[in-house]
């Protein structure tokens, strides 16, 4: 009985030692991995940092303006000006066709908009802008 107990405890000791040894080495490997990952993260962060600066540099207004000026024969860009704003009210809508008129105005009423209607619509001499205001139904 004592011998059996002794043998069992010896086995237990050896098993525990082996387990501890194994865990210890696994921990060390993991720590090493953590270290590697940390430095990798740091390197990535540094790269992100550099890229952010590069992005800011490449997008600096002065640089973009220079590039636009260089290639403007093909781009045809110009600075935004007050003339590029307009009132919805000033856009000529397609002429009202004799038809179900009330239906046409209904959406506008909902939006409480000011609709401008051409007083004297010339016979369509140039294409009238066709994109319609949101909610416009022709039926």
């Amino acid at each position, binding site marked *: 009985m004592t011998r059996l107990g002794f043998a069992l405890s010896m086995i237990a000791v050896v098993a525990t030692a082996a387990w501890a040894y194994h865990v210890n080495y696994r921990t060390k490997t993991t720590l090493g991995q953590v270290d590697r990952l940390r430095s990798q993260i740091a390197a990535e962060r540094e790269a992100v940092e550099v890229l952010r600066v590069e992005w800011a540099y490449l997008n600096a207004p*002065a640089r973009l303006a220079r590039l636009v000026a260089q290639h403007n024969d093909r781009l045809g860009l110009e600075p935004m000006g007050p003339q590029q704003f307009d009132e919805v009210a000033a856009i000529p809508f397609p002429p009202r066709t004799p038809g179900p008129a009330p239906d046409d105005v209904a959406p506008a009423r909902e939006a409480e908009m000011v609709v401008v209607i051409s007083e004297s619509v010339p016979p369509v001499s140039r294409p009238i802008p066709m994109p319609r205001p949101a909610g416009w139904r022709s039926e």
Partner: protein
Amino acid sequence: MSDFAAPPFRQAHGRAQSASRGGAATRPRDDWRLIVVMLALLLVYTAVGVRMGLMALNEPVEPQLARGAGMATPVRGEIVDRNGNLLAANLPAFSLYAHPREIKDAAAVARDLAAIFPDMSAEQLIKRLSRGSRFVWIKRPITPRQRQRVLDLGYPGLKFGSRTMRIYPAGRTVAHIVGNVRAGNEDVRFAELVGAGGVEGYFDERLRDPARLGAPLELSIDLTVQAALRDVLAAGMAQFTAKGAMGVLMDVRTGELLALVSLPDFDPNRAPEPFNGPPEFNPRFNRTVQGRYELGSTFKVLTAAFALESGVVGPETLIETGSALTYGRYRIRDMHRMPPEMTVTDIVVRSSNVGAARLALRVGTPRLKDYFKRLGFFEPLPLELAEAEHAPPLLPPKWTDLSSMTISFGHGIAVSPVHLAAAFATLAGGGKRVLPTLIKGGAEPTERVFSPETARTMMRIIREVVRRGTGRRTNLPGYEVGGKTGTADKVRPGGGYYKSRVIATFASVFPTSNPRYALVISLDEPVDLSGPKPKREASRTAVPVTAAAIRRIAPLLGMRPLPVSAPAGLATVAAGGQ
């Protein structure tokens, strides 16, 4: 005695002992000794065993800080504009140094290094490398690419340290605002960056505070607007062959500066170049803050506002303007013939010196001084730039009635363009003193200088200046620009004024019905040569530049022009309401 007697030694021995001494009384003492020895041995062997086990299991590891965790945190906080665009950031870089004793062929090393760094000469490098010292700096900072080229040379004795490089991606556009840094304490591995000018200088401690490195410093500047204003001013400067130009754009509600341009400017990414010449022409001189100018007739707006505020006149009060005003041996005259009497509104619109001087006299010197003081014209700008506090306004040493009279039309007092912009913003914002700031958010003004009534009246008056006075060229449809021109002869360094050198200024507010922005634009020595005679007046120089600036800036600020009138040929029909 045979050897066979050995195993039962104890017994034999015992027997012998007992035989000799005759008793078992001594046996427990023997056991005790043995046990002690055994225990001691066991202890020693256990200790050795445990130690061996531990050594086998754990290799000693040097204690170290979490590796890598600290590498990516910036050494100095970043600076961004109001929309988060980077204005100042850090880049990893290197410093190059040498151990001259390890260098065999100094001439060859110097030649190859000079090829990599064009700003260094080979002779200079030879001298430095053959000095026989143990350590010399060669260049700092250098870029990673330059480092690679030096590594490719493969010479021993050339070494690198790590550095952080401060970089300004927006370059010249914001040069005067961000300022720059210089290297402070440094060694091979590390260098301190110390702010030296601009926001970098003013906020040096905050930018270096380790607790706030992660949070960028947000400025009120809008990079796009700043770039647009700089563009327009540069074009205006070229058109009118001006020596310098400055522009200040301020939000009248918060005092936030959206753009602050001083031309000529410099590239903050380069080391300062030596400049010999008058300091105010140095590109590093920030005209908008450090420059103090007599801003001429723009001050008439302030004089009129003080007069209205003090209650001595109303906007339609008639003031005598027909004859020159004599004070002691001085005579104050107008450039052009003026009607004998004009209303306060017309004094501003037609820019009468005599009228302004009479208004100043009516207000009285002590009250006038008090108003200027309350507007902050007696103190340096409370602006977050290192240069601001060293540039207090230039006031007359002794403020007499004559001073009041000349100051009423902007002579005898020199302030920075930002001072003037803040004063206009105060009027535009409803009368509470607006404090200029470069920090996003600004502050709600609290200290009342003018009544809302005066502020509204003044907006009407400066709108008149643009409608029918000297500011007509800024009458952009839909933006309701109001403003006042000022053409001031420049002060000669020796005393007196130059005949044909002026500072042309246009201080404006838009839109006047619901003011949002104050814009001050000044040109240094502009001249319009397009006509038969050279013109220097602000109405021919600063005003067209302001018009171009507002045309560019207002859309960028998201301001749509107010509809001026219904388009021709269209009738407005109310649909929806009644």
